[in-house]
């Protein structure tokens, strides 16, 4: 079941003051959408934030990208990895800081939660590449950020969110369904709302919003299908933890679109193991860098 616009609106009025992106990142999002922007323009904006600059350079030089030379400036990072990648890195770094900062909250460990998110990001990138999706960088970011709604729910109403997790575990029901019962809203809908406020690209927003039932909106959106399947695969593999104790089945329409079956699935899982090691640098986020 999906929430109507009205139901979502009513539910969200309880959540005032939704978190906003830091100025630097908001500015990055804005100037990357202008085709006349150069790498130097982007450098000028990002360099204003030394911590962000440092983290982006660490990631840009990590095994995840595997560029053979050392990248020492944001300008080089942009011209090497692309505008889109640097924008996504800036976004991921600050969203992590805002929404995933290390703190253990009883049943819900942010460390495991981030580990899950990184795994879904990596797996999304693999699935996107397999079907020749035009932008596998966005797939990675969509996977990385697909559960921002959960952070918001936890921060806004910690007790209710934890009880939703309890119910999910006791009844082996999907967390998003329980969330709707307990909180009147689910993490996908809330996450989609955040994506909208943050001006994330349309495909990212759809992927976050439709991650749980990609086929219930008609033909599945490719990125939503990718994130959905990646999420289920990573849950099935026990990579990190996301507080969801429902089934790990992959939606049929999504599996079909992604050409996933019992033969291709092990191949994806095999790749995932290898590439997760390369994404180590993203996990260091939660160890305070």
């Amino acid at each position: 079941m999906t929430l109507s616009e009205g139901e979502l609106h009513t539910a969200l009025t309880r959540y005032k003051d939704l978190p906003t992106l830091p100025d630097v990142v908001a500015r990055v999002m804005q100037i990357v959408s202008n085709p006349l922007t150069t790498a130097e323009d982007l450098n000028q904006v990002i360099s204003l934030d030394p911590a962000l600059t440092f983290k982006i350079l660490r990631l840009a030089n990590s095994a995840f990208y595997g560029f053979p030379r050392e990248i020492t400036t944001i300008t080089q990072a942009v011209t090497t990895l692309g505008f889109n990648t640097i924008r996504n890195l800036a976004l991921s770094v600050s969203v992590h800081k805002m929404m995933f900062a290390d703190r253990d909250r009883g049943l819900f460990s942010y460390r495991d939660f981030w580990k899950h998110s990184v795994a879904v990001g990596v797996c999304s990138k693999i699935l996107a590449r397999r079907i020749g999706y035009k932008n596998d960088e966005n797939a990675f970011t969509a996977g990385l950020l697909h559960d921002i709604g959960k952070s918001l729910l936890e921060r806004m109403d910690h007790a209710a969110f934890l009880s939703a997790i309890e119910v999910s575990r006791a009844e082996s029901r999907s967390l998003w369904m329980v969330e709707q019962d307990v909180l009147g809203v689910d993490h996908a809908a809330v996450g989609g709302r955040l994506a909208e406020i943050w001006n994330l690209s349309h495909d990212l927003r759809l992927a976050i919003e439709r991650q749980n039932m990609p086929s219930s909106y008609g033909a599945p959106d490719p990125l939503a299908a990718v994130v959905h399947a990646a999420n289920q695969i990573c849950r099935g593999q026990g990579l990190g933890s996301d507080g969801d104790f429902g089934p790990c089945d992959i939606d049929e329409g999504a599996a079909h679109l992604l050409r996933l079956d019992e033969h291709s699935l092990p191949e994806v899982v095999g790749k995932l193991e290898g590439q997760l090691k390369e994404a180590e640098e993203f996990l260091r986020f939660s160890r305070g860098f």
Partner: protein
Amino acid sequence: MDPNDEKIGELERHIDTLEQINEGLRQSFEELSQLYRFSETIASALTFSRVLTLLLDVMREVVEYDAGVLFLYDERGGQLRLNLEKNVTPELKLRFDAQIKDGTLLWALKQGRILVLADTGQGSWTQGIPEEETGRSFLLVPILARGKPVGLLDLAVSAGAGTFSQRDLSLLSILANQTGISLENARLYEAVRQDYVDLIQALAGAVDARDHYTREHSNRVSHYGVAIARQLKLDESFVETVQFGGLLHDIGKIGIPDLILNKPARLTNAEFEVMKGHCSLGAGLLRRVESLSHLVPLVLYHHERFDGQGYPEGLAGKKIPLGARILNVADSFETITSDRVYHQARSPREGLEEIRRCSGGQFDPEIVAAFEAVYEDIVRRRDQSGEAP
């Protein structure tokens, strides 16, 4: 402040914005039409190498590069191989080599996205030496066809790496993608074309195999015909028609009984009548194949004589198709100068005399004149090929 002034100020700002938008649109339009022209140019090339040459030329109009190198991707070896280079100085050569050696180019190819590499002088980034950027950079443009890597264009430009806008880069990407498609098309075209030529060679070989005295005959007639056609300054597509017509002119002999075809003595009149049938037999075969049907006039009429005394129809003068008149001279010269069941090979000089003697009779004098002009060349090449009698 006067409310009118305020309104005017607001209006002026609006006009400014509109002008900016308009300027942006005008630029976009110009770029699009430029891009379209370039794509058209590249798409017009039919061969692989032509597409690549055009790409280097066209790129020069999109981005002013100082030097450029084009690599092709060797899928089996997983390596990039140099294909073309333009204005590469020894100093730049070192840079290009370093980019291959440390894997930067292969990395760029794998990303399938344009990369701009700042040139940091002699020092290497990997050594962690903070080098001054030289203000020069390299544009690494991967060329993909249907998502698969085909090659990479590496352009040295006199501009800092950070000065290219997203639009500049996407313009180059679009052009590179277009090139990828054109390369794929050219590859397909060349493959089909090669099949076509192979097929013609195989057919020609089938005739020569039956008649061991005429081994290499079809090949030589084809070569002589081409030399004459070129001398007559005929366009390349017609030269090719003569080339293939030469190869297939005797294809009808496939249908002539062995006893007649390989008879070790002069043919009787009745046998000769059967032999004459090879022209229409051959024409009949080729007519059924769409892509070979343009050769029919050459095959059907290559035994017509300029004075109208030939066969099968007794056409005379310019009524005989040009290609057939050319092949008639080429065929006769080849036959005279080769061993046959009924005669010993005569020398090229004697062959030439015979052709001259029959100018205006059996042969079109214009063709004979062209033949005389290329005679030396023909004989020299024939001797070099080691097939001389």
